[in-house]
């Protein structure tokens, strides 16, 4: 029944997008409803494009759009007129009246369901608002720590009582939330968490003891989501230490926090240590199951990432405005800066990155908003990696356009640069997320390919012949057709070439993944340099899919400046295609482009001595 409803909804969406598509989806949909649709990114690992997940580009209804525009207007006005980012950065504190205004705008409960007093925004709407909030890094981080991770646990796994008890106060901003996971000895290593919760004798309370570091909002929050080790009796009767999540109120007693940390960027956000000393937490405040904290933490972390894409895009759009103003007024050698090729290049770069990450972010948000609740954690992680790295690159380029002025505190660029640096670190460092992206996909592909690989290893003649034959055909170079272009294609013809490039990349990526699994099997976990490349290719592929989907939609419904979008999309696809080809060739065994062995040796030699070991260039032997 729900599948049918979905079909209607999707069809309605598609009908607006393109009449031709209605026929297409109508003809295909009934066949595929029986099979649960798979996560898009994971299918890429098999060399397939799960078209109906990403084409057409997700849309919101007109009502929703009107609703969100009502929100956007006042928020944008507030951020442009009343928020003084320079002052926040200088004083290391968000002024109280600014916080009050944020609360009154409802920004503390954007994703809290409406029945609990929040705005109940969908992921897409949340991303849209994030674009505006990102005009100030400190406020973004404060709000994200409050609702993207701080209270997310309650929304995701909280009981009805917990929701009713906490969400209204949190949504109104009366209470602030914080997420307490990191410890001095435990970053992403859950096994080394030292904070401990022991059940009291009357079995009504847990006694919580331990310290958490780098807690955003740690000094301001009243409600903490705390992860601690508890003793759990396993199914086989043995007692084990397992992680459990708790909702801890500051009023429970024994909660103290250190003084705010002095940071490089996002200086207005409050980051400090939080200590729990014999804090009595009622058993009702266990979040999720006892011993199920690990899953809770993972879900919270995975769910919050996609919004970084739109936030960074919002920041970049503002950045383009600011720098373009400068480039068009500043004159050197009787020419405007905007007339110099090297300056123009930087604008093209910023626009392209903004376009791609925006497409990726809204595509992911759209996927997340689908009623079947798909697992989009890989996609979200890709958005996070791409947007954080682009942010760093673009802010740096923007600063470069300004030259010396950009380096001065009078201009916002140095602050934006400092603020942007944290994006590569928090919510899982980009290195860790690359591992996540690659390994999750490889796990999926590895399971499906198990049979094939076993046959190849056993020496099944048919399978081997088939593989060899396919390799020969591949090496002769054939055009891949995964159904993106052509008469029934979902991509607009003006993007046809880019779509072909994507198809070729996807096909060879699938081959490469199979090859890698054949070569490394489960030991691929140790090949981090290989995994990094797999993740990079996948991020590029996802970016290509997102821009193709979005640009196609823009052409079909005739959005303003869609020719500009085509330019950007084609540009990105060509660049990504070349990068992918290079990465894929590096993934071949014994490829001359592959410098892994040298890289490992150099670092080993350095790390053995813990110093730079080359002799000084001025050194002599006699």
């Amino acid at each position, binding site marked *: 029944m729900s599948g049918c409803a979905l079909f209607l909804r999707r069809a309605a969406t598609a009908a607006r997008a393109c009449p031709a598509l209605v026929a297409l989806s109508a003809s295909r949909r009934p066949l595929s409803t029986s099979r649960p649709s798979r996560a898009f990114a994971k299918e890429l690992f098999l060399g397939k494009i799960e078209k109906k997940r990403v084409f057409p580009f997700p849309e919101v209804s007109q009502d929703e759009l009107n609703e969100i525009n009502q929100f956007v207007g006042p928020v944008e006005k507030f951020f442009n007129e009343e928020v003084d980012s320079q002052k926040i950065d200088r004083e290391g504190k968000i002024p109280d009246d600014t916080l009050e205004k944020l609360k009154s705008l409802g920004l503390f409960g954007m994703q809290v369901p409406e029945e609990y007093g929040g705005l109940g925004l969908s992921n897409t709407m949340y991303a849209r608002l994030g674009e505006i909030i990102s005009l100030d890094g400190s406020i973004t981080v404060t709000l994200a720590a409050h609702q993207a991770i701080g209270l997310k646990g309650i929304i995701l796994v909280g009981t009805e009582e917990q929701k009713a008890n906490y969400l209204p106060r949190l949504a109104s901003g009366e209470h602030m939330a914080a997420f307490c996971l990191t410890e001095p000895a435990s970053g992403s290593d859950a096994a080394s968490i030292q904070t401990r919760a022991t059940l009291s004798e009357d079995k009504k309370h847990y006694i919580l003891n331990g310290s958490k570091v780098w807690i955003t909002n740690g000094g301001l929050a009243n409600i903490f989501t705390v992860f601690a080790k508890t003793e759990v009796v396993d199914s086989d009767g043995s007692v084990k230490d397992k992680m459990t999540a708790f909702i801890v109120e500051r009023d429970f007693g024994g909660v103290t926090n250190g003084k705010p940390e002095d940071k490089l960027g996002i200086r207005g956000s409050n980051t400090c240590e939080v200590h729990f000393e014999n804090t009595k937490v009622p058993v009702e405040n266990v979040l999720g199951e006892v011993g199920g904290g690990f899953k809770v933490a993972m879900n919270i972390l995975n769910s919050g990432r996609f919004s970084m894409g739109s936030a960074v895009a919002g920041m970049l759009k503002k950045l383009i405005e600011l720098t373009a103003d400068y480039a068009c007024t500043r004159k050197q050698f009787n020419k405007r800066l905007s007339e110099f090729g090297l300056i123009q290049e930087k604008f093209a770069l910023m626009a392209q990155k903004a376009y791609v990450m925006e497409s990726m972010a809204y595509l992911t948000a759209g996927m997340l908003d689908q009623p079947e609740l798909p697992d989009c954690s890989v996609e979200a992680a890709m958005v996070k990696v791409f947007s954080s790295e682009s942010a760093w690159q673009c802010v740096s380029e923007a600063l470069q356009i300004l030259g010396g002025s950009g380096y001065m505190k009078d201009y916002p660029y140095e602050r934006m640069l400092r603020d942007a640096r944290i994006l590569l670190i928090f919510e899982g460092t980009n290195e860790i997320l690359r591992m996540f992206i690659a390994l999750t996909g490889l796990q999926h592909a590895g399971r499906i390919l198990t049979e094939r690989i076993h046959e190849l290893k056993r020496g099944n003649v048919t399978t081997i012949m088939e593989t060899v034959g396919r390799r020969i055909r591949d090496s002769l170079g054939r055009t891949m057709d995964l159904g993106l272009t052509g008469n029934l294609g979902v991509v607009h013809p003006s993007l046809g070439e880019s779509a072909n490039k994507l198809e070729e990349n996807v096909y060879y990526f699938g081959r490469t993944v199979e090859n890698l699994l054949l070569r490394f099997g489960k030991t691929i976990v140790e090949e981090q340099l290989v995994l990094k490349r797999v993740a990079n290719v996948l991020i590029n592929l996802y970016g290509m899919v997102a821009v193709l989907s979005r640009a196609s939609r823009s052409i079909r419904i005739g959005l303003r400046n869609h020719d500009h979008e085509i330019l950007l999309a084609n540009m990105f696809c060509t660049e990504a295609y070349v990068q992918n080809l290079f990465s894929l060739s590096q993934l071949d065994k014994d490829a001359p482009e592959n410098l892994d062995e040298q890289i490992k040796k150099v670092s080993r030699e350095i790390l053995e001595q813990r110093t730079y070991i080359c002799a000084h260039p001025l050194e002599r*032997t006699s």
Partner: protein
Amino acid sequence: MSWVQAILLARGLSRGWGGICGAALTGAPFSQVLPQALRGLHCSTATHNSEMSLVPHPPEPPKKPIKAPAPHEELFRQEPGGERDKASFVRAVQNFGQYNVRKRGHVDFIYLALRKMREYGVERDLTVYNLLLDIFPKEVFRPRSVIQRIFLHYPRQQECGIAVLEQMENHGVMPNKETEFLLIQIFGRKSYPMLKYLRMRLWLTRFKNINPFPVPRDLPQDPVDLAKLGLRHIEPDLSARITVYQMPLSDDLTGTEDPIQPHIVGIQSPDQQAALAHHNPARPVFVEGPFSLWLRSKCVYYHILRADLLPPEERKVEKIPEEWNLYYPMQLDLDYGRSGWDDYEFDIDEVEEGPIFAMCMAGAHDQATLAKWIQGLQETNPALAQIPVIFRLAGSTGELLTSSGLEEPPRPLCEVQEEDDDHRKQQQQGRS
């Protein structure tokens, strides 16, 4: 083939293979005689012999009971109260030039000076070597005709020149441009000293840094500093911490000969500390030693604290915890592994040894001193208090106690004694 070609070939061969032939000929009696017989001819075909041209080691008492004074010995005679240093050495060399304008007997003098260098402490000084080379008359020994160039021209002088370079090489002194200039002036570009020079330029640089664990040239005199250096030298972990458990205290009455409190310096890395903390207290740990370590010309002795390898049934298998990494899977749930093509692991039978928990260097090698070390270790390793410690010290303690200085190696034990010691060791085993 004309005879000229043949001779050219012979010359090339002798030059290229000189080193090898020389080494092969070492010790053969005729090679000693031959050059001397041909010396007057100035066209000796004897190949250059590196061993032969070495400076003969001066004191060989059994062979020459009464040593005739070498010529020019008086130049190095010590005036009363005079210091033996670079200045006086240079003065002696300059005096030779002054009193002997025709440089008669300069080869003998150079050999003598080479022998004396160590006494004056200038054996590593490049300028002194250049000064010695400068004694040779210039341009005289340069071959002038084709015939001279083919055969060894002025062999004795060339050998002497090689001896100078050889001694430089032995002391690791790299010749410089000035050396090259002098050699060209004296012997010409195509001469054996020049060949030696070129080889030194090539190889000395390569060999100079070949030791991945370099030892400083001047070792510290203080036994504690020396022990620190030695321990750092053995310990591969750079995070290891050196602790001085006891500073040496010497009894003023008896002098430095018999220190009442020998120094104890220990080293332990964090990993070793963690391993000791997890050690099963039911299994004893051993203090073993002394083992020798040579640092240049000094020998130091160290002791180790170690345990036996755990029997396989007691070893804990490292299991990947189920809920470990919050961000990505630490292992893939697949039932196939690495293919043979990508398995670069060599099949090596590794000898597994028990863990070593700490090392120390002490002024004395007796059980009392080492027990103090163990006491000191207990402060940072509380677990050690519960573990029985067995002392397995090689050699009888009495012997080792008499060797008070670090420089003195313990008396070499013959095979039988070692057997004996093993029995005694077992008897000596006791709990700390």
